[in-house]
C-alpha cells in the first residue's frame, strides 16, 4: 500500500525557513524589530507542524511517510531556530556598558565634526538658536 504524503513536515519546515528569511523584512518596523514577535511566531508554528508530522510518521508509519526526511528537516529547523536565537538574544546584546557616558545633569562633551557637506559642525553651533539637541550615535551605513 502506498503511504500518504506527510505534509506537516514539509509545510512546517518551509514556515521555519520563512521565519528566518523574513527577519530582514520585519526588522524594518520597530514593533517587530525590538522583539522579533513575527519570527518567533513563525518558528513556533513551523516547529509545531514538524512535531505533528513526526508524531504521525513514527506513530503510524504504515500510513504516513517521513520518518527519515522528517527527522532531518526537524534537526535543520531546530538548528535554524538555535542560530537565530543566539544571534538575536545573545550576539545583538553584546553592547559595551558605556559607564563613562555623560549622565543626566552633566555637561555633554563638545565636538567639532564634518557634516555630510564637508562643513564643520560643533556642538556650540547646534546649541545656538535652539532649545536643545538630540545627539544620535549610530553604527553607520555599511
Amino acid at each position, binding site marked *: 500500500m502506498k503511504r500518504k504524503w506527510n505534509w506537516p513536515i514539509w509545510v512546517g519546515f518551509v514556515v521555519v525557513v520563512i521565519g528566518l528569511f523574513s527577519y530582514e523584512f520585519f526588522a524594518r518596523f520597530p514593533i517587530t524589530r525590538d522583539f522579533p514577535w513575527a519570527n518567533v511566531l513563525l518558528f513556533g508554528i513551523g516547529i509545531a507542524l514538524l512535531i505533528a508530522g513526526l508524531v504521525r510518521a513514527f506513530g503510524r508509519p504504515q500510513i504516513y511517510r517521513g520518518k527519515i526526511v522528517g527527522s532531518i528537516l526537524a534537526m535543520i529547523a531546530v538548528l535554524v531556530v538555535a542560530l537565530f536565537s543566539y544571534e538575536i538574544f545573545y550576539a545583538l546584546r553584546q553592547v559595551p556598558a558605556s559607564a563613562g557616558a555623560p549622565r543626566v545633569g*552633566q*555637561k555633554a562633551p563638545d565636538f567639532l565634526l564634518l557634516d555630510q557637506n564637508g562643513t564643520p559642525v560643533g556642538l556650540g553651533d547646534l546649541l545656538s538658536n535652539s532649545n*536643545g*539637541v538630540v545627539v544620535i550615535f549610530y553604527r553607520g551605513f555599511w
Partner: protein
Amino acid sequence: MRSFQQRLPEFEARRISVVGISVDPPEINRRQSQKRGYTFPLLSDPKMRAIRRYDVLHPGAGPKGADIARPAEFLLDSNGIVRWVNLTDNIVVRARPEQVLEALNQLSPAGQ
C-alpha cells in the same frame, strides 16, 4: 534615523536640533542622506573623538572588526546639559522619536 526624519517637524517646532554621529566619512553620509532624504546633519567621526568622549565606542563591532559607535541617544538642553539618555542593551533596539518627544514633554510640560 528614518523615524527621526519622519518626526523632524515636531522637533523643529520645539526648536530642537537633531544630529547623527558615526564613523562614516562625509561622502557616505552625503550619499545616504540624499538617498534616504535626511535633512538633519550627519556628522563624520572617523577618528572617534566624539565617540570616545561620550564613551560610546563599540570596539571591533564594525565590518572587518572595525571600531564603530554603539547606538546611543542623548537629549541636551540649550546649555548643553544632558537631560535624557538612552543606552540600549540591544543594538537593534534604538530610541524612537516619540520617546524623546515624551522626555521633552516631561521636561517642559508647556511644550516650550
